[in-house]
Structure formats: structure tokens, C-alpha cells
């Protein structure tokens, strides 16, 4: 095995080795059991006291959602105001300007919803103040929001569930203080000691070896890069994200950032099993997710390490694979792995430019975001998976002629309606958005925006279509990566993706939490010989089939028009 492939394997195994104990720890944290970090309890009590919150007052599912939406609204207002005024606020050594209203709208929403789509470049678009109070802050709390929401689901399926499903603010605070912050400090230290900047100094002026004067952007980036991965956020400090040699200086930091982004999504599945005492169910879910990941990873690895057919035409050597848009210190293999996990997990950070990857890789990146639940984002991955699981329960129940039930609770029409709406929302947002963009491009090519539609696309033809499809997919999946050639900083993209981001975040949280809340209230039907078991390989296969059929049926035509058509033109 080459050292490049070995790097991929070791990185994944290391992630698993850390995620399993972390999952058990997470379950203990939310259950309020003893942990090593109990010395933080006074800090948490202080937070509750200042906010006037009683962390022991339990909420039903509606109160949970109301609290979640209210605090998210506060965060949005805060972020929007700071971005609009950052030019006149402190900690702006590079003298960067305030954002335009449409860009501030897009950016505030994008970080609020854990997406981190970026229509600006960090070097010139933000100040250190907004990087810390908007970007870093939202990266923490949006991840914690997803985690708090999934704990509601955990509570709903505990053995003796009731309407009372814990306290939202307590889960939010614990996610920050017990899980995200401590791990981020470790990651940030690793990054800092490998060359990622942490100080508040502005750009450095240097004269290079051959005598050119250049400036080097930097800033207190290490802490932000830690949470951008651990919280599956993905927005970079600098323009090119983790391809930048200061954000990701070497192979060790690359492994660290890769482990960090996959860690909590896997740990959450483990935590689910421990929390509701159904470890076998958790391992079945983990198995389906892992098979799904491999189905996307293998084609991506083959197409990236196989090299570019265009460059092969020029008779160039491609010993390691396709190098356009990639960094020498990483190479194509680990970049393909990064590309896979960042799209299935809704991180959206990149260590290589997706716009320059091979067509088959582009198709896999899109599929990862269409499905959006192979491991999935921080907390929300399980929520997305849960929707497919409910649909699979219902369909299998009908197939074998039994009442559909999940963990002793009957799944009925109301729950199915919610699940179906949420499952269909995702393709609707993506396909309608892309259609609108194509329509605008064709009919109003000269519209007077910051970037005219005729100048949107960096690549013509099928690949250009993929650029637009990718942007809406990334928004709806709250992913945040992009085919960055797209000229997206103008009112059309800022506003349209802004709304897609909001709908693509909050409805897929509201839906599963509502289903869980409704199921929790129902009478428990003891499992019997007639129960359809959901923790078997057969049922796992059934869920995978449901996921693939829904994703393939809805998106196949769009995939054909974009990456697949491109594939057949150049191979």
C-alpha cells in the first residue's frame, strides 16, 4: 500500500479509536453523570444564574423548538449588525471594510445555520473582531444547537419517555463547556505548534528571497480552525480554507483537522446507543453510514489518484494523480478522502479546490450532500438519518403487513407526513434553486448586479451547470463548500442561497424533533415476536436502499446534466 493510501486508512482508524470513547463520554455528559470535567460545574452554574435559567426545568418538544428558534434569532441580529459595521469596530489592523447588506445577510445566516458558505475571502472580507464575535462564536453555538436538538431525540426514545424532554439551554451550555471547548483547546494547541498563527498581529510585510515585496495575511486563526472542524462548520479563516499553508501547515495538522470533523458525528451515534441502551441499533446505524461513506469514497479515490485525462493528453506525468487545485504536502489520496468526508458530514471545509476535481468526484461530492446523513453534521446528521429511518420503518411495515413501529412506538400518518415533507424539501430547494439560477442566466445575462449573470461561471458547459447546482446543494445541505469559480458575491446568490440556508437548516431540525416529541407521548408497545426489528443487518440494508432510492430518483437527472455529462465528454 502506498504511503498516501496508508495515510487515509490510519486517519480513519484514528478517528474511530477516538470517537468510541468520546461517544460514551458524551452520553454521560447529557445524562448528568460524573465525568472528569466536573470541575467546570461552577462555571456552568454561573452561566445559568446570569441568564436567569433553571437548567432542571424540563421542556416538551414545542418549548424546546421555541427556545432554539428564539436564541437563534438573537444570534442572527447580533451577527448581522456586527458584519454591517465591522469596518468601524476595533481589532481591524488590516483596515477591512464593512459588508454590503446582502453579503452581511448571507454571511450571518450561513454561519448561524452551521453552513459556512462564504461569498467573501477572509483576508479582505472580515476583521479580527468579526472573525471572533460572529464567525467563531456562531461556529460554537450552531454546533451546540444541533447537538442540543439531537439530545431531545435521545430523550424521546429512552425506556420510560414522557412529554418532558430535558432543558434546551442546559444541553446547549453543556455541549459548549464539556464537549466543544475542551477538545478545541487541544486541537488549537496542535495547530499552533505546527505553524498556524494565533496572535492579533495584522498582515506581515516581507521581502522575499528574490527581492519581491509581498504581504502575508494572518491573525488569531488557530482557535477558529479548531471549532470550524470539530463543529462541522467548515468556514475558513483565509480564502482557500484548509488548503492554505497557514490554516493547514503539514500532514499532521491535516490529519488532525480530518479527525476533528468526523469525530463528533460518529461519537453521536455511539452516544445514542449508550443513552437509550440500544447499542446494537447504534452499531447498525453506524454500519449503514460507513457503507454509504465507502460507496462515495472509493470512486472518488480512484478518479483522483487516476489523474486528469486532460493532462494525460498533454503527455504529462501524473505519478500521484490529479494535482490541479491540490497541495503537494497532502497529495490526491488524502484530498479525495477529505473531499468525501467534508461533503457527507456537512463540514464544507476543503484542502483542495473542488471546482478542479474530476467529474466523477464532483458527482460523489454532490451525492454526499444530497444524502447528507452518512455520519452527517454535528447532531443534525442523526436527525437527517432519522427521517429516512422512519420512512424505512413505514415501508418495511407495509411490505411485511405489520403495524410500523420504531422502538415500541407506533409510527402513524402524522409522523409519516412530517417525514415525507422533510425528505422532499431537500430536493425541492436544490432543484428549484438551480432552475431559477439557470433561468436567470439564460434570460437576464446582463442584469446589473455586482457580478453579471453572464460572468458568473468560471467554466463553461456542463461544468458550469455543476457550479450552480453545487452552490444550491451546498446551501440546502448546510455544507458550505463550493465550486469556488462561481461569481457568487452579488445580490442574486446572496439572497437566494440565504433563504435556502434558513429553510434547509430549521425545517430539518423542527421535523425530526416534532416526530420524536409525538412518538415520545405515545404508549409503549412491548416488543414481541411480531415486532419488526430495526437493529438487524436486514433493516440496515432496507434503510440504505430507501436513502439511495430517494436520493437517486430525485437528483439523478441533475447529476446527468452536470458531472456525468462532463465525465462522458472527457473520458
Amino acid at each position: 500500500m502506498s504511503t498516501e493510501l496508508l495515510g487515509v486508512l490510519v486517519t480513519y482508524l484514528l478517528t474511530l479509536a477516538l470517537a468510541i470513547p468520546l461517544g460514551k463520554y458524551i452520553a454521560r455528559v447529557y445524562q448528568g453523570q460524573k465525568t472528569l470535567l466536573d470541575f467546570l460545574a461552577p462555571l456552568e452554574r454561573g452561566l445559568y444564574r446570569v441568564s436567569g435559567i433553571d437548567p432542571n426545568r424540563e421542556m416538551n418538544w414545542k418549548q424546546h423548538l421555541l427556545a432554539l428558534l428564539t436564541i437563534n434569532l438573537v444570534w442572527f441580529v447580533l451577527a448581522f449588525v456586527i458584519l454591517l459595521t465591522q469596518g468601524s469596530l476595533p481589532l481591524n489592523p488590516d483596515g477591512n471594510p464593512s459588508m454590503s447588506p446582502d453579503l452581511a445577510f448571507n454571511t450571518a445566516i450561513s454561519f448561524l445555520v452551521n453552513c459556512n458558505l462564504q461569498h467573501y475571502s477572509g483576508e479582505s472580507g472580515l476583521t479580527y473582531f468579526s472573525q471572533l464575535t460572529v464567525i467563531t462564536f456562531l461556529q460554537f453555538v450552531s454546533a451546540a444547537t444541533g447537538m442540543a436538538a439531537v439530545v431531545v431525540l435521545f430523550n424521546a426514545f429512552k425506556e420510560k419517555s414522557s412529554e418532558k424532554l430535558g432543558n434546551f439551554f442546559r444541553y446547549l451550555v453543556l455541549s459548549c463547556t464539556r464537549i466543544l471547548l475542551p477538545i478545541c483547546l487541544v486541537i488549537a494547541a496542535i495547530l499552533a505548534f505546527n505553524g498556524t498563527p494565533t496572535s492579533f498581529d495584522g498582515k506581515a510585510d516581507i521581502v522575499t528571497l528574490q527581492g519581491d515585496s509581498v504581504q502575508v495575511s494572518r491573525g488569531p486563526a488557530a482557535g477558529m480552525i479548531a471549532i470550524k472542524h470539530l463543529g462541522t462548520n467548515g468556514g475558513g479563516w483565509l480564502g482557500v480554507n484548509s488548503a492554505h499553508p497557514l490554516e493547514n501547515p503539514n500532514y499532521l495538522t491535516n490529519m488532525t483537522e480530518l479527525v476533528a470533523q468526523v469525530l463528533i458525528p460518529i461519537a453521536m451515534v455511539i452516544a445514542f446507543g449508550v443513552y437509550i441502551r440500544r447499542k446494537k441499533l447504534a452499531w447498525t446505524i453506524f454500519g449503514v453510514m460507513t457503507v454509504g461513506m465507502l460507496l462515495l469514497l472509493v470512486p472518488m479515490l480512484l478518479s483522483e489518484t487516476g489523474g486528469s485525462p486532460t493532462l494525460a493528453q498533454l503527455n504529462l506525468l501524473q505519478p500521484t494523480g490529479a494535482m490541479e487545485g491540490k497541495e503537494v504536502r497532502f497529495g490526491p489520496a488524502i484530498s479525495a478522502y477529505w473531499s468525501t468526508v467534508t461533503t457527507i458530514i456537512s463540514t464544507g471545509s476543503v484542502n483542495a479546490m473542488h471546482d478542479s476535481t474530476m467529474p466523477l468526484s464532483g458527482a460523489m461530492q454532490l451525492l454526499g450532500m444530497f444524502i447528507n446523513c452518512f455520519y452527517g453534521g454535528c447532531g443534525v446528521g442523526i436527525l437527517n438519518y432519522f427521517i429516512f429511518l422512519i420512512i424505512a420503518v413505514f415501508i418495511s411495515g407495509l411490505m411485511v403487513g405489520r403495524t410500523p413501529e420504531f422502538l415500541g412506538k407506533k409510527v402513524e400518518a402524522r409522523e409519516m407526513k412530517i417525514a415525507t415533507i422533510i425528505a422532499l424539501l431537500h430536493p425541492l430547494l436544490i432543484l428549484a434553486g438551480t432552475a431559477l439560477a439557470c433561468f436567470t442566466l439564460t434570460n437576464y445575462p446582463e442584469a446589473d448586479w455586482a457580478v453579471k449573470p453572464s460572468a458568473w461561471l468560471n467554466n463553461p458547459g456542463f461544468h458550469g451547470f455543476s457550479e450552480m447546482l453545487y452552490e444550491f446543494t451546498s446551501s440546502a445541505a448546510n455544507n458550505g463548500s463550493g465550486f469556488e469559480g462561481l461569481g457568487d458575491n452579488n445580490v442574486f446568490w446572496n439572497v437566494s442561497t440565504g433563504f435556502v440556508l434558513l429553510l434547509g437548516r430549521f425545517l430539518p431540525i423542527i421535523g425530526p424533533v416534532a416526530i420524536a416529541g409525538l412518538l415520545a407521548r405515545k404508549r409503549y408497545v412491548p416488543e414481541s415476536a411480531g415486532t419488526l426489528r430495526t437493529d438487524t443487518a436486514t433493516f440496515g440494508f432496507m434503510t440504505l436502499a430507501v436513502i439511495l432510492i430517494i436520493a437517486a430518483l430525485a437528483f439523478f437527472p441533475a447529476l446527468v446534466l452536470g458531472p456525468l455529462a462532463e465525465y462522458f465528454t472527457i473520458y
Partner: protein
Amino acid sequence: MKTYLIASIKMTLVLLVLLSGVYPALVAGIGKLSPGGGGGETVSRNGKVVGFANVGQAFTQDGYFQGRPSAVDYNAAGSAGSNKGPSNPDYLATVQAPIDTFLAHNPGVTRDQIPAELVTASGSGLDPHLSPQAAYLQVARVAQARNLPEQKVQALVQQHVEAPFLGILGPEKVNVLQLNLALDAVK
């Protein structure tokens, strides 16, 4: 709604202090202990800073090893890749130009010896590395431009090949700035 709103505003303020104040301050404190003191690791010659250890820079003279093409011309106040897709008709021309330049400056080298990373843009536009293969290919030109024996330059490249991480993970590479600094130091 109202009860949650007031609690939410208060909680936002205390979390801001913790996550946007205390946390970055702690990280900055950790960074102070790191090489470079948190401002990024720099490389100096005779007490003068000539670059950042990890940030690539442009080398255009024949007497220096040259790095990869950059979409931002190695100006690190920004960063970008080319974002060109493989099916873009302009792409062939984009790659053809650096190939022609390279062949003109390196007589004796043929196109089928050129590794693709030498003529394709990196993701960041600031890639500080070359593959060993891409560095060895430039030895003859550099040696001639500096009037040095080829074996000496070849040996210098060999010394600067960095092994994979822990000897087994990831690719081998050569840091172009370090190599060129060493080259300047050769008497």
C-alpha cells in the same frame, strides 16, 4: 417567547465572553509558547526575515528552483486556486503556457518527464512545496546558471527531500524556499 427572549439575550452575552473572549485569549497564550510566538513561523537570513516557513513564494530566476504556478502570483494577502475544471476548453492553453516556458528554460528536458504538479496551479496559490521529482528535473538548469557541479546541486536536493509523516504517511516533498536558501549558501 418573551421569557425565552430575555434569557436568550443574557445567555448570548455570557457565551460571547466565554467563546469570543476567553477562548481566543487562551489560544493566543498557548501560541506564545510555539515557534514563531503565534505570528507564524518565519525564516531569516543574516537576521533579516525572507519569508514564512510554510508560505510559498515566487522564484522566477533560472538560478533558483521554481515552485508551482500560482493563481495569485504568490501574493499572500490573498489566496486562490485556478478553479478550472478538467473539461474547460481554456484549460489546455492554461497548462500549455508553463510547459512551454519550462521546456525553453530547461533544454534537454522532454514533456513526458514533467510531473503535472510543476505546471498546474495549487489549491492555495501559496504551495511551498514541490515533489522530489519536480525538483530533480530542475537540477541541470540551476547548476548551469550558478556554475556549480550538477552532483553538488543534486545532493543538495536529496538532503532537502522530506520523508512522509512518521516515515509512512502521505507524500514526500521538498520545501522550495529552504532549498533555495541552502543553494544561496553554497560557496
